[in-house]
């Protein structure tokens, strides 16, 4: 999408993301009100989050723990000494006229994460994206504009402060991203990480994960930066990718038409698939940060930090790598299986119960995932346990049942669980692997279809499939398919 005609200048995009991620705590960052999403307006408010006189904020210990864990998972340096600051602006979404955030001493800095994309040949492309900083802050309230959906047409606004004081971490990336695809994958990996950690649900529709994009373009080969534009309002990973692709084209066109690119904030419009200027008044964002006097500083001791580090789970990138080296899975399979921690754990448990990795992976990524999607279920709650899936895979491996029979009984197992072996035996589905028994059926089939037999022997070898089908029909699909093929071949060609 970014390629210009061969004679023209080639441009590259320089992209960084600022991601706000809501932490999964019970209560707000500085007060005891609930963080529940979708509560009635202004149900979850209290004197602290409303900034009433005489109140004092106190930091929620979970917020600190989650922020440090996220920082560690992003390979950051955790600040031994950190503090909160007031970011001041006057807008009705802030009850106090300032937001408690972190300015010059964020809790974590200088990290990175690794994204994995695929080249045209299907080979993995890995790239390390720098994390500039991660800090803790409180969210603002939500405005509902009266008399109109749009701000411009409203005569008043209604404010819901349930969200004011919800704990967030803001994660700022280095400008290491070069395309919409890379940026969207970075955001996905970030979400995978916070979900693996259990520090956030990463739900974009509910606003638990919000990404702002900073983007400029420059001729390939130069290392100065062009004028930076900020894009907001993308509420899916796809929208991030599309907004960036649109913006790259818009900026290239502006440069080629000798227009100036204005440093500004633009909004992604999902309906029209374009970005539009927000026209903010110049000089209105002067936040005059100063240290928050109501909150003491934070010191994370080495012992505390290492204790939290020891609680980190295996992270998505590590898991992807392990699936390739330990199980010999393709990078694609490794990516699909590790996307969701519960799925990955289910796979690990299945493999630990003795299942061959590739067939187990195929069952989980194929039929089981399909079932979970259709039924809107989570893998951790279905009756079919990993050990039972391992048993099913084992039954196919040792030729007790065919793959076809396994597929037939899977719905039953998914709905009720239980031992596949017991089910197969009680239903009489054990594969017929006795050559004599199969030969008997073959003889009957050949005797009953003399015409087809003659045609086959006359050169119409495609009829082999017909004979296989007949044998399967007479054994209710239980004849070992491989053996049936071999024996049929022998009989037909003798």
């Amino acid at each position, binding site marked *: 999408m970014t390629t210009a005609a061969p004679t023209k200048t080639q441009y590259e995009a320089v992209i960084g993301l600022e991601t706000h991620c809501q932490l999964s705590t019970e*209560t707000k960052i500085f007060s*005891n009100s609930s963080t529940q999403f979708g509560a009635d307006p202004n149900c979850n408010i209290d004197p602290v989050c409303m900034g009433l006189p005489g109140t004092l904020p106190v930091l929620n210990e979970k917020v600190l723990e989650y922020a440090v864990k996220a920082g560690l998972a992003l390979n950051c340096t955790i600040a031994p000494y950190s503090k909160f600051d007031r970011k001041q602006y006057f807008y009705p979404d802030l009850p106090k006229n300032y937001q408690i955030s972190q300015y010059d001493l964020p809790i974590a800095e200088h990290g990175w994460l690794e994204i994995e994309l695929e080249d045209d040949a299907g080979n993995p492309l890995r790239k390390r994206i720098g994390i500039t900083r991660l800090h803790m802050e409180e969210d603002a309230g939500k405005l509902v504009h009266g008399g109109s959906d749009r701000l411009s047409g409203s*005569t008043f606004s209604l404010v819901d402060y349930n969200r004011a004081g919800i704990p967030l971490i803001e994660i700022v990336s280095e400008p290491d991203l070069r395309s919409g695809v890379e940026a969207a994958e970075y955001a996905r990996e970030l979400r995978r990480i916070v979900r693996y950690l259990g520090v956030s649900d990463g739900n974009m529709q509910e606003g638990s994960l919000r990404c702002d994009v900073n983007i400029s373009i420059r001729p390939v080969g130069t290392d100065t930066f062009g004028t930076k534009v900020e894009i907001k309002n993308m509420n899916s990973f796809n929208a991030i990718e599309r907004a960036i692709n649109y913006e790259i084209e818009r900026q290239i066109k502006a440069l080629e038409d000798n227009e100036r690119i204005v440093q500004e904030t633009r909004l992604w419009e999902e309906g029209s698939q374009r970005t539009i200027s927000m026209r903010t008044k110049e000089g209105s964002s002067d936040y005059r940060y100063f240290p928050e006097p109501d909150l*003491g500083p934070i010191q994370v001791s080495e012992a505390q930090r290492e204790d939290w580090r020891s609680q980190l789970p295996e992270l998505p990138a590590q898991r992807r790598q392990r699936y390739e080296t330990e199980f010999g899975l393709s990078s694609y399979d490794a990516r699909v299986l590790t996307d969701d921690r519960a799925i990955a754990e289910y796979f690990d448990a299945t493999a630990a119960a003795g299942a061959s990795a590739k067939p187990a992976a195929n069952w989980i990524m194929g039929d089981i995932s399909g079932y979970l999607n259709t039924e809107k279920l989570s893998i951790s709650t279905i009756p079919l346990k990993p050990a039972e899936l391992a048993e099913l895979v084992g039954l196919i491996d040792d030729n007790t049942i065919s793959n076809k029979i396994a597929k037939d009984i899977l719905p039953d197992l998914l709905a009720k669980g239980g031992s596949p072996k017991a089910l197969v035996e009680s239903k009489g589905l054990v594969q017929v692997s006795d050559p004599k028994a199969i030969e008997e059926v073959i003889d009957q089939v050949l005797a009953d279809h003399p015409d087809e037999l003659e045609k086959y022997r006359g050169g119409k070898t495609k009829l082999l499939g017909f004979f296989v089908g007949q044998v399967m029909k007479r054994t209710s699909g239980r004849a070992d398919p491989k053996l049936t093929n071999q024996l049929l071949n022998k009989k037909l060609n003798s």
Partner: protein
Amino acid sequence: MIDREQVRKVAHLARLELTDEEETQFSGQLNSILDYFEQLSELDTNNVEPTARAIDVVNMTRVDAQESYEARDRILEGAPDRDDDFFRVPQILNEG
């Protein structure tokens, strides 16, 4: 010295509309306040660590246990204007 231009800027940031007289009045008052604080510069602080607070405590945290604030309606009542469960604010003229 703080001039009228700076007073206007601060007023804009705080979304305040000032009359000409107020701008003159506040320029003077703000200058006296700043002059008063300027007395602190007489002290030599070259070897003093910057400090944000007087009390030396760190890591004051609370347990993440939910407790609803019962008098929520009184907070709504205390606002200049409410609309049922919402706080109602005047028309917003410019973002940010």
